[in-house]
């Protein structure tokens, strides 16, 4: 056993003695100092957390769950209102829109307009392909 290993054993013995409250004479010159060190290290620093720390945290993690449920219900209700309103508007003005759209289709078929429409569709396609890759890389970070 080399010097460091012997000293490690003295440190561990002092720790065990301190835990068991054993007072005994050791042959090693450093044993008493190590017992004193073990005693100091066993002294806990005062925990300065408020008395309601745990209860307060529990309330904090529970609170968003209630809010999210309410929020989700409100979003659902809002989507339903928009859907019904959209249906009513389409029922009232749908005939006019259909007529206008039908008149617009031959316009699309000619040169410049068609090119612009294709360019916009191309941009949207590129953007939608790039988005999932970007989302994955930001999740990995």
């Amino acid at each position, binding site marked *: 056993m080399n010097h460091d290993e012997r000293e490690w054993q003295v440190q561990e013995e002092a720790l065990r003695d301190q835990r068991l409250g054993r007072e005994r004479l050791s042959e090693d010159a450093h044993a008493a100092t190590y017992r004193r060190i073990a005693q100091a*290290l*066993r002294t806990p*620093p005062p925990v*300065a957390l*408020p008395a309601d720390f*745990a209860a307060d945290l529990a309330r904090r993690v529970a609170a968003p769950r209630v809010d999210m449920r309410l929020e989700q219900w409100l979003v659902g209700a809002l989507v339903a209102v928009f859907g019904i309103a959209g249906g009513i508007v389409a029922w009232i003005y749908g005939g006019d829109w259909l007529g206008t759209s039908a008149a617009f289709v031959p316009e699309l078929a000619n040169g410049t307009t068609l090119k612009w429409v294709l360019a916009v569709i191309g941009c949207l396609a590129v953007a939608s392909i790039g988005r999932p890759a970007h989302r994955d890389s930001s999740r990995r970070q």
Partner: protein
Amino acid sequence: MIDAAPPTDDDRALAQAVLAGRPGAFERLVRTYQGLCWHIIERMVRHPDDTRELCQETFLRVHQCLHQYRGESALKSWIGQVAYSVGKRHLERRRIPIADAIGADEDGLAPAYAVSDGVDLQAEHADDEITLLLHAAIDALPPLQRTVLTLYHLEELPIADIARITGLAEGTIKSHLFRSRRQLRETLETGYGVAA
């Protein structure tokens, strides 16, 4: 004190209860481990307000990530790991070095952490005074060494669990323990003239 402590049935039951959202379960978990969390973070950051805030952050993260706890280690060790990573990130943000390199400056405390000059080396060797000086020497150790000593001596965690918490090898933990304790011993015996 080398082998990791195995998870208990209580650990798994408590984690399941929190995940199931059972009333009072998370509060019980916080109450059980708030002392451990405080000891780890306080030893690292040495500032009560920051420690309080980081303890909160730790338990919020525990709540958020508890589904990742697979019950392969003791819950104490898993929560300690979260607390340690929160404390470590805090120190890194503030550019505070967490540890001295092992083997550097073995003959005494690193200059940046040395006990203040106000300490009277010729003071009487009364027990209380020596204890105070010893606590000052412990406080003067780098954050990692302080934390490892606290986990081993105060929390009585095995070396394997401390290695898991800190992400360091067991040999490194053992080396930190040995050198830190020897450094404290030398500080007492030579610096303050405490007889062995």
